[in-house]
Structures are given as structure tokens and as C-alpha cells.
């Protein structure tokens, strides 16, 4: 039996099920990161001193540029499908995947530098919340990369069978990816600049 409302919209919501599903998932993600942001505020407000300039601002800025770029390529991957250009879609999706990989490589070097100096999460309250927030965000990047790899690999076969359903899948992946970018937009100033 086919799953209903993967392409056509439900009469009651006016949405395909996947679209409402991904937004509800993102709502739960807002609460997950919200809890950690709230924790950050409590820790920072309760501390006598808070380190500034402990992180490499330029590396953080480069990573912000990378994620913004990946958001642009992701939305272009979806727009290409809407214009029935599957070849361009694949290039844009591949570019998004590669940019996500570069982001993680940069993060790896940043983490490695901290650990080489003995500055793990146990070192200070700031580093504890820094590793928690960026680690969770990094896991979300990995999750997005897994989905993109699927859409570039075996998942791409769906385009031949049902191009509209494939386009919807790319749109939902894009919504998730933009959310990951949005979280970083707030993480960058509060961890690297303030």
C-alpha cells in the first residue's frame, strides 16, 4: 500500500504530510537547542568572569560563510528540480555536501587545537557549553550529510519514478539544512564574539 499524501496535499491541512512533519520536527529541534541556549544564559549570568577571545574568530567566520554558501546551494538544488534540470540539481546538492564536509573539517581542526592544549569540556564552564552546543550542531551537520548522500546515491532513483515526490524530499532536506544554518547564525556570535 502506498503512503498517502506524499505529493498531493491533504484537504484539511492543505499540505503534504511530509511538509507538516518536517516543520513539527523542526519545532522540536527549536526546543532542544532552546534548552541549551537557556543553559548558556544561566551559566553566563551566574559566572563572575566569562572568557572573551578564547576562540578563533576568523575560523568561526569562515565556517559561517561556508554554511551560508551551503544554504544557497541547497535552495538552488531545490529550484533546479522545480525547473526540471536534474543535472544542475545534482551539482548543487553535491556542492552543499562538500561545503558541509569542509565545515566539519574546520571544526575538527578547531577541536584538535583545543585538545592539544588540554582544553577539553572539563577545562572550564565556557568550554563545557561550547563543546556541547557545537558538538550537537556538528551532529546535525553529519545527519544532514547522511540524507544528502542518500539523495545523491540510491535515493536519486526516485526522480525517474516520481519526480514530484523526489522534489518534495529535497525540499524537506533543505528546510532541515536551513535550520542547521540558522542555529549556527546564533551560535557564532554568542560563542565566538561575546
Amino acid at each position: 500500500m502506498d503512503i498517502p499524501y506524499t505529493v498531493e496535499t491533504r484537504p484539511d491541512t492543505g499540505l503534504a504530510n511530509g511538509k507538516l512533519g518536517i516543520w513539527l520536527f523542526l519545532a522540536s529541534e527549536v526546543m532542544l537547542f532552546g534548552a541549551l541556549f537557556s543553559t548558556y544564559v544561566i551559566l553566563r549570568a551566574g559566572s563572575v568572569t566569562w572568557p572573551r577571545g578564547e576562540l578563533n574568530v576568523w575560523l568561526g567566520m569562515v565556517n559561517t560563510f561556508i554554511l551560508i554558501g551551503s544554504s544557497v546551494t541547497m535552495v538552488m538544488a531545490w529550484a533546479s528540480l522545480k525547473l526540471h534540470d536534474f543535472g544542475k540539481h545534482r551539482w548543487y546538492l553535491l556542492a552543499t555536501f562538500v561545503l558541509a564536509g569542509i565545515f566539519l573539517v574546520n571544526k575538527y581542526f578547531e577541536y584538535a587545537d583545543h585538545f592539544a592544549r588540554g582544553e577539553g569540556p572539563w577545562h572550564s564552564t565556557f568550554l563545557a557549553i561550547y563543546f556541547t552546543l557545537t558538538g550537537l550542531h556538528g551532529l546535525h551537520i553529519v545527519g544532514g550529510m547522511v540524507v544528502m548522500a542518500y539523495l545523491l546515491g540510491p535515493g536519486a532513483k526516485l526522480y525517474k519514478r516520481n519526480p514530484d515526490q523526489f522534489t518534495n524530499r529535497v525540499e524537506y532536506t533543505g528546510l532541515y539544512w536551513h535550520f542547521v544554518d540558522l542555529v549556527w547564525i546564533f551560535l557564532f556570535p554568542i560563542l565566538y564574539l561575546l
Partner: protein
Amino acid sequence: MHSDPASIKQGIRKYLMIGAALYVFTVITVAVNQVHLAVPLAITVALIVATIKGSMVATVFMHLSHEKRWIYGALILTVAFFIVLMCLPGFTVMDTIGRPSAWASAPPAHGAEAGH
């Protein structure tokens, strides 16, 4: 969401412009940080710029500027609970449970003693 080729092509121009604007705002955030403002002002400026950037991503890239009622409804609920979550640190600071209150530790008033 409009999905005819003409509006998609128009949308592509918008995506590129928003991408460029996000880069500019990132540079502004870092530039303001180099000025070394007082911490409260620096936090305010950084959060305002981040909110502008976040709104751009949500409205344009995530197409929230023209979504269906159900999605807006879910997001309004999320925002309400998010605000409560962000107020929790404030509630924690205001919490006086377990602390002796000024009223309880104050010496009894003269008139109150006379009443006994």
C-alpha cells in the same frame, strides 16, 4: 508556494541576493566585535544582527513568507514555548525558595509585641 518556472527564476535571483546580504551582515557582526564595545551593547548589537540574518533565512530560504496556516500555527506555539524557555534563567534568579526572606528574618515590630 508558487512553482511556475517564471516565479522560480525570479526566486533564484532573490536567493542569491539574500545569500550576499547574509555575507555582508556576517562581516558587519565581526567588524562591530573588533570595535570592543561594552558587553551589554555588544550582546544587543550581535543578537539584533543575528535575528535579522535568521529572519532572512526563515522567510526566504525556508519560504516562511508564504506558508500555510498549519505551519504558522505550529511555529507560533513553538515561539511561545521558546520564550518561556528563555525566561527560565530569569525565574531561576528570582527564585527565593530555600533562602531566608527579609520579612521572616526582621525583628518583630513594637506594636505587634504589645498586642500579646
